Structure formats: C-alpha cells, structure tokens
C-alpha cells in the first residue's frame, strides 16, 4: 500500500462561543487511500461535518484547529491560508457536496455560470472546454446537458442535488466529500443518488469521504468506515471488519440500534444518555457515560486508537487497518456476546419479546 492521499492525525478543533469554548473534534485520526471510499459515521454533533469543513479550510470564523495535522499527499495543509486553500486544494483536489446541497446553488446565478466561475478560478480551460466538461458531468448525473444554463430555482430538489454533484465532479477532484448526501431524501430518491455515486466510482478514480449517520448507506457504498462519538474516533477500518467484529461498544450498540428491514422482529438496542459537551480536549472516553461496560479507568484517560490484531478477519493480523479506541477492546466483544445471550432488560422495562408478529 502506498502513502494515503489524505491523512488526519490527532486533529483537535475548537469553537469559541462568547467566553467559553467547545471542542468539536478531539484527537481524531484516520486516513484515505487513492480510490478509497470511506464513510464517516456518527450522531449529529459528533464533529463529522466539522472535520469535512476543516479539510477544505472552511471552518466557521470562530473555529480553529488547536492541534494535530491534516496531510494531503504528504503536505501539511492545516495551517494554509484562505488563498493557499483556493490555489492548491479547493475543488481541484478536494471538492465537496455540502449538507442540504439543494440550497447550495446561488439562486440568482445560472448554474453554468457557476461552473465557469469555478473553472476560471482553478484551471486554464477555455470557456467552451469548461462548458463541454460540465455538460459531460451533467450527463453522468442524469440531467439534460441542454439545461446547464438554467437557474437553480427552475430545477426540482432532486435535480438541484444532482447539479451540485455535477459541479463537484467536473474538475475531476482527487477526493470528493459528500456531507449527508441522502439525508432528508425519500428512499427511492436516496437510491437514485447512491446509484449516481456508484456511477462516479465507475467513471472516475476519485476517492470519497461520505459523511452520514446512516450506517446502512456506508455498508453499501464504502470500503472503509470511521465511527465517531462526540469528537473522538471510536473505531476505523474496512467495513467488513467493522461489520464482522465491531470492537468499540458504541459501534456494537449502534449496529444493534439500527433497524434492518430483513429482521423486523429483532429487538432494537437502545443507547441511553447523550454525548457530553466538551469544553476542552477530551482526556477521557466520551462514551463512558453511555457505555454498559465502562470502568473507572475510562473516565481517567482518553483511549488511543490501536490496531485490532487478535481476531482480525482480514487475515494479515500484523498490519491491520482495523483500529479501535477502547481500553477494554480485548474484553468487550466477549461481554457483548454474554449480554446478547442473556437478553437484557433495558431501562424502558418491559419484556424484550414484543408481542409483534
């Protein structure tokens, strides 16, 4: 394996709100290889969108990177200025499908003009070359190329989203960040968008970082995933490894909390409590208050991200990319098995065997 395209290394991001500060990301690390699709998963507010913005140097004004590194092709970019980001990173290298992308198009600017503006800023393509490329991209996402000069308000919601995807693709970036690309869409629409994303994979060799709270989308479209809880990376690795042997309690519970259409009678797991609000870099496991197997130690030190070697399914146990941040990582799977065997009574009370058909 070569050097990863993108490496995030012990990244900590803080927001200043009035007198106090909030730590949104706390010592997070993960990496993405050329052509790899990675899913970044977590609840709302866990810091996943913040990381995406940081990769593009587009944090809100009150946010700043306190420590850690972001390496793009080996170069440290975390301290780049706005101009450096414009020149070296944005859109040519890393492009982003923002959250709520339906509202991301300027309503008083024709879409093609936005494309020209982007091309003008990052390439020396002529006007007609740029438009040709953009038409191509329009076709990939299933829009009529003849409509590129229309205003966004002349498009339906789904079409706007696709137009944004076209804008993201047409300069052929190395990495595409998709921030909740399917949230708020109906399943059929979601499926359409996911199909376009798969199509991008066939037609380009971009990498993708897909941010979502929906692990089923990640399991379907991504090669690897990174699970975050309240600013910390809990577990990262190939999706199959994480599916087969989840090692962080959060991921275990999350998997069981997620409804699966194939097993409508399965009992859903409940994750009690809420993630803590961090005012400083976390020096404890942020999942401690919600974890059924927490011990005192968990609240005394932040767990390091370490390879899961002992039960690696992928075969090469020595250099596993499956990593987890849990000090009880060797015991937890066992405990989970036991718990599942016993069947557990949740805080909701009542029997687990519902009277469902």
């Amino acid at each position, binding site marked *: 394996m070569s050097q990863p395209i993108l490496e995030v290394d012990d990244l900590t991001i803080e927001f200043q709100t009035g007198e106090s500060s909030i730590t949104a990301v706390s010592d997070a690390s993960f990496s993405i290889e050329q052509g790899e699709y990675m899913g970044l998963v977590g609840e709302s507010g866990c810091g996943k969108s913040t990381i995406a913005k940081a990769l593009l140097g587009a944090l809100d004004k009150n946010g700043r990177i306190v420590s850690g590194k972001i390496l793009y092709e080996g170069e440290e970019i975390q301290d780049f200025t706005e101009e450096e980001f414009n020149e070296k*990173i944005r859109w040519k290298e890393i492009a982003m499908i923002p959250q709520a992308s339906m509202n*991301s198009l*300027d309503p008083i600017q024709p879409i093609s003009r936005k494309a020209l503006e*982007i091309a003008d800023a990052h390439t020396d393509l002529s006007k007609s070359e740029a438009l040709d490329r953009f038409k191509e991209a329009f076709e990939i996402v299933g829009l009529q190329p003849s409509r590129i000069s229309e205003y966004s308000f002349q498009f339906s919601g789904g079409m706007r989203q696709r137009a944004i995807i076209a804008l993201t693709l047409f300069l052929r970036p190395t990495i595409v960040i998709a921030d909740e690309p399917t949230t708020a869409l109906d399943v059929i629409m979601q499926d359409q968008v996911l199909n376009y994303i798969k199509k991008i994979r066939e037609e380009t060799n971009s990498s993708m970082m897909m941010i979502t709270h929906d692990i089923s989308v990640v399991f379907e479209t991504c090669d690897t995933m990174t699970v975050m809880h309240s600013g910390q990376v809990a577990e990262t690795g190939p999706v199959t490894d994480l599916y087969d042997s989840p090692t962080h309690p959060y991921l275990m519970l999350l998997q069981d909390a997620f409804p699966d259409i194939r097993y409508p009678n399965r009992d859903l797991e409940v994750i009690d409590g809420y993630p803590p609000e961090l005012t400083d870099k976390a020096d404890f496991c942020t999942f401690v208050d919600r974890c059924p197997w927490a011990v005192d130690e968990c609240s005394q030190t932040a767990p390091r991200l370490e390879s899961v070697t002992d039960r690696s399914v992928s075969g090469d146990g020595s250099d596993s990319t499956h990593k987890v941040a849990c000090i009880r990582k060797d015991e937890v799977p066992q405990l989970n098995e036991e718990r599942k065997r016993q069947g557990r009574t949740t805080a909701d009370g009542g029997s687990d065997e519902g009277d469902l058909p």
Partner: protein
Amino acid sequence: MSRARFFVVRSIQTVFLLWVAFTGLFFFFRFMPGDFTNLMLAEGANPDAVAEFEERWGLNDPLYIQYWRYFMNILSGDAGMSIQYRRPVWDMVNTRIFNSFILIAPGITFAYLLGSIYGSIVGTKRGSKLEEFGILPLIFVGSFPAFVTSIILVIIFSSWLNLFPTSGMISPGRQAEFAQLEWYQRYLSLEFVWHFILPFTAVMFRYLYLPTMIMRTSIVEVMGQGFAFFHRITGISKRRQLAHLARHASLPVITVYPISMTRALGGLVLIEVVFNWPGIGNTLVNAVMVRDLPIIQFVFFLVAAYIILANFLVDIVYGIIDPRVSVGAEDA
C-alpha cells in the same frame, strides 16, 4: 412569464394605480367638511359672496362634471388656481417640487449608500463590539423626531459654531439677485450649497439607521446561506465571493429604499418647516392653514403619484437583479 411581459404588465398596473389614486383623492376632498367656503362663512362672509364664489369655481356643477373637468385639466397640466393666492397651482408648486426633491433624493440616497456600506461592515464583524454597539447611535438618531434632529443641528452648527445659516435657501438680502438667474443656476451657487448642507445632513442622519440595520441583518443572513458556504468552498476569489454576497444582501435594501423615500415625506415636511426651506412641505403646511383646497389636492396627488412611481421603479430594478421575480420560479 418573460421579462418584457413582466415590465409591460407592471407599467399598465402603475398607470391604473395612478388613476385610482387621482379619483380617490378627488372624491375624498369633495366630501371633506370645513373647506374654504365654510371658512369664509365662519369668518363672517355673507352667503351671497359665498354663492358667487361657488359659482365662479364651478362648485355647483354636478360632481361628475367637476371630476371630468378636473381630470382633463390635470392631463393638460392645469391643476387649477390657488384660492388664496389667485395664481395657477402649477406655477406655485413647480419650483417647490424641485426644491424638495433636491433635499430628499440625495439625502436618502446618500443615507442608503453610506448605510449599506456601514451595515455590511458591521454585519461581517459578527460578535464584535462594533456589531453590538456600532449601530446604536444610528437607531437613536433615527428614532428622534425629524424636527429635533434639525433643531439640534441648528443649535450646534448655526448658533454655537456659526458655520451655516439657520433657515431659507437663499439669504433674504440676495433674493432679488437670484431671481434674475436661470432656474438651474440657483442650485449651482455656493450660496445655495451653504444653505443646503444642514437640511441635507438632517435628512441623511435621520434616515441612516434603516439601510444600515437592514444591510447588517441581510448580510448576516446571506452569509449563513448554503450558497455562501458553497461559493467559499469552490475556491473562488474573495472578491468574487463578496460580489455575490453583496448582490444578494442588497435585495432587501432595494425593496426598502422607496419605502424610505416615501416615509421620509412626513419628516421632510418637518425639516422644511424648521429650516424654512421653500419646498413642497412648507407649501402644504401654509395651504392647510388657510384650507387652500386646489393646492392641497394637487400636492396630495403628487405625493400619491410619487409613492406609486417609486414602487414601480423598484419593481423594475428588482426584476433586473433577481430573475426569480421576472422569470418566475417553476418547479421542473
């Protein structure tokens, strides 16, 4: 709807509105109690004189004939005779209209330019002391009665510092000299500028807060929009981003501009009275005191027409800036 059609439709609507306002005002004044004839009676004029007066002014004709006559006269530029001065109304107000206009239009426009710039500076400095307190003095001045702003200016700059005259457009001693000049030459003289500065400042300061506040809110809102973020991450230059933001943020300011232009009319009357400025507001106040109906009625029509036309202009400008208005949004 095509743009051209949008403009044509708005033009027709505007002409129709003008007619409605004209007609409404005509009947409004016909049904007012206490007009000039009553005033004559109250002052002890004998009924025969009043009858003769009514005869001469055609007040005994059926209403629709009066209406028709007035309507045709207005179309041909004849707004009737002032009862008090026995002079054509048009002759009495034409220069006055310009005197008012030269006060209000540059005053408000300047306030909007200044306010927009200041507002966008304040808006982009979110959370700073400037955002918190920078706009307060403007709101204060904006809440003052217009005549108070003027009076404070007079006290400070005329009375204490002795820099500017307290009233008038031309010093009384030089009236005759100026009467010789072509009308436009009067406005090009230093004498005029010297008199102009204080009332102009009063208008500007009084109406500075609204554009500032709207621009501030607007810029904050636009910066929070999805497309602002998108512009940023697509890596286009700062200057281009600002241009996009400014175009959006200016939309609400443009909408409010004619509202200020029309709302300022009330304030303008007061400012004219304080400075004894020979404008339409002063004319109206004098006419109202003696119930000189032809003048009042014509000034009212001017005010209505002014409001209607200002709104029309804004719609046109808006239609050019924002295609959603003129092209019309449709979901594909």
